[in-house]
């Protein structure tokens, strides 16, 4: 019998980090408020008690410093797991991530590896003030040398964080913060396939909905509603935004002929833009309709009272479904 336990996404990430720390003494966890407090979302709660201050520590409030020293620690043979407290606070570290971390292996012709994980709670829907609800993943997916992933459920959270920590490449690990307390089964014995495969979560025949992170449960909800109205949607959890598992998406699109891609991020030059371009290139004759992108508007993330109108919901996905079915 597989050892399956119910836990939240936050607890699953915590359990995954602990497992990685127990397996590899070189894994270090640091960032703002991660130690005694366990992070502002308590994702690293209890790790200090279990592993001590040489394995998890609070950094100064300096994001460039967090990533810059993580690079140095990786050069020294450590596997740093650095937390950026909120999506909107990652930009002071943008230079270290894109001009240093992403390029170091290539610059050194492989002499140096960069097994660095950057954990980023991301996305909106929590009624927060400015800079606490953003979806900056496309900036990093655009940068060669980085891997960018996001779990949508506790089982993936538990395993993907461990796979990210084991990777010798730098990984941006985007945590869907409004789903932290969503519970689900975690199979502690059996890892899913790698962190870069897309998963078909619901079989369908008429339209493919591809989403990642916090939008996956919205897509599943849309599919449920559509089914009650007699429309069959296939739902894919993209899971990895760099690289993207195009094979799984293309296989689905070749079956349904229609694709809607959904995320919280603004749609202009986004993950969905790349998927739409690729699908148009590689599945042109299979498409019955143009690929439609459903995402945030191309405006700064709005004040909390307006975020309900900014964030795509099941109805916005279904509106797009209607449009692709109209062709």
């Amino acid at each position: 019998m597989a050892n399956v336990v119910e836990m939240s996404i936050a607890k699953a990430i915590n359990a995954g980090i602990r497992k990685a720390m127990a397996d590899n003494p070189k894994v270090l966890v640091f960032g703002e408020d991660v130690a005694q407090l366990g992070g502002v979302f308590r994702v690293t709660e209890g790790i200090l008690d279990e592993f001590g201050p040489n394995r998890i520590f609070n950094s100064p409030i300096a994001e460039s410093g967090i990533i810059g020293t993580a690079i140095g620690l990786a050069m020294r043979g450590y596997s740093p797991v650095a937390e950026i407290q909120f999506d909107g606070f990652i930009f002071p570290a943008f230079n270290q991530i894109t001009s240093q971390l992403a390029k170091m292996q290539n610059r050194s012709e492989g002499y140096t590896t960069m097994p660095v994980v950057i954990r980023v709670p991301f996305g909106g829907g929590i009624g927060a003030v400015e800079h606490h609800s953003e979806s900056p993943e496309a900036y990093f997916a655009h940068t060669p040398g980085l891997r960018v992933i996001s779990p949508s459920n506790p089982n993936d959270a538990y395993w993907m964080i461990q796979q990210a920590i084991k990777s010798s490449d730098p990984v941006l690990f985007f945590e869907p913060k409004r789903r932290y307390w969503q519970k689900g089964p975690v199979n502690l014995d059996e890892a899913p396939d790698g962190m870069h495969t897309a998963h078909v979560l619901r079989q369908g025949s008429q339209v493919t909905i591809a989403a990642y992170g916090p939008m996956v449960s919205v897509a599943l909800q849309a599919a449920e509603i559509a089914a009650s109205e007699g429309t069959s949607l296939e739902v894919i959890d993209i899971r990895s935004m760099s690289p993207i598992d195009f094979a799984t998406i293309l296989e689905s699109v070749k079956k349904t002929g229609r694709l809607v891609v959904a995320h919280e991020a603004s749609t202009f030059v986004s993950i969905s833009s790349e998927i739409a371009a690729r699908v148009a290139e590689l599945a042109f004759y299979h498409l019955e309709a143009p690929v439609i992108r459903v995402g945030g508007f191309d405006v700064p993330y709005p004040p909390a009272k307006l975020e309900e109108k900014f964030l795509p919901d099941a109805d916005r996905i279904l509106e797009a479904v209607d449009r692709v079915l109209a062709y």
Partner: protein
Amino acid sequence: MSAQDASRVPMVQLLSPEGQYSVPAEYAEYGKYIDQLGEADFLKFYRDMARIRRFDNEATALQRQGQLGLWIPAIGQEAAQIGSGHGVGHNDHIFPSYREHGVALTHGIDLMSILKMLRGVNHGGWNPDETRFHLYGIVLGTQVLHATGYAMGVKFDGKVGSGNHDEDLAVISYFGDGATAEGDISESFLFAATTQAPIVFFCQNNQWAISSPVNSQTTVPLYQRGSGFGVPGIRIDGNDILASYAVTKKHMDDARNGAGPYMIEALTYRIGAHTSSDDPSKYRDQAEVDYWAARDPLIRFEKFLRRQGIGDDFFAECEAAGEALSAEIREKTFALGEPPIENMFKHVYSETHPLIEEQLAWLEAYEASFGEGGAH
């Protein structure tokens, strides 16, 4: 000369511009390190300075002839670099900026690796672990955070102040006066101070950041920059190789023994251009350049050596070695080939990545479509 460079700012100088060696009482702790040196060490110091000066001049010529895409001269900074480089211990790690050719020489980096990079063949290519001399950092200040993180790791490893001479180590990071304006430098001071990491911050104040004079980067002497973070510092005469050696050696020893971070500001002067693309005549007076050229670190050390009884034969030998070096690097530069196209795709990731594989395959097929010779 800005006010901060006036003689009232204390500065470690062991060798006067006339080559007279003397140790002021307040710097006796540094003099002890010079007492341990012999003639062979002094000759090595001079040889290395002469070698890197020659290398610099030859590289400038190669750039002018179109053999290098860019050259970054370090002329005038040889004492700061060769002296401090020799003050770094046998386990210590070095994180340079992009002008540290002299430090590279003291740590066995093949000088052709530097020319290869500036010709555009690769981005460095030496092994940073084996040489303990890390790759050049071009975005100002970034490498100083890497050095700090490395030093934090050394401390986590318990390789600081353990008393085990074979295993303990410290880290030194080089940067310039211009880089001190970058936030990464301030964050480095802070991370190093709060963790008491074994690191020496070595700032070569060559007084010009391309066209910006140092007083546009700071209003206090730079050696004081770390003090608010808890990183004490000292200014040295950066054109005095003995001060550069002794002060670096002492503070690397201290850091290795657990004293925490320290900052050294080496006051020197960039005699040449920022790079071969720069024209300093547009922003600084020749009189200032002449003032510093008269304080050339090689001339000063030659005066010292002659006072020690070193004669013409030695300097002739250095000159001949320089001739040979010039001929050698010219020949090797001309022989540098073109990098294969797959190098562009190598090591972007250390594990497989479908996009990279797909694009390399496409480019190879595209190139092959032109037939033998790849005519375009």
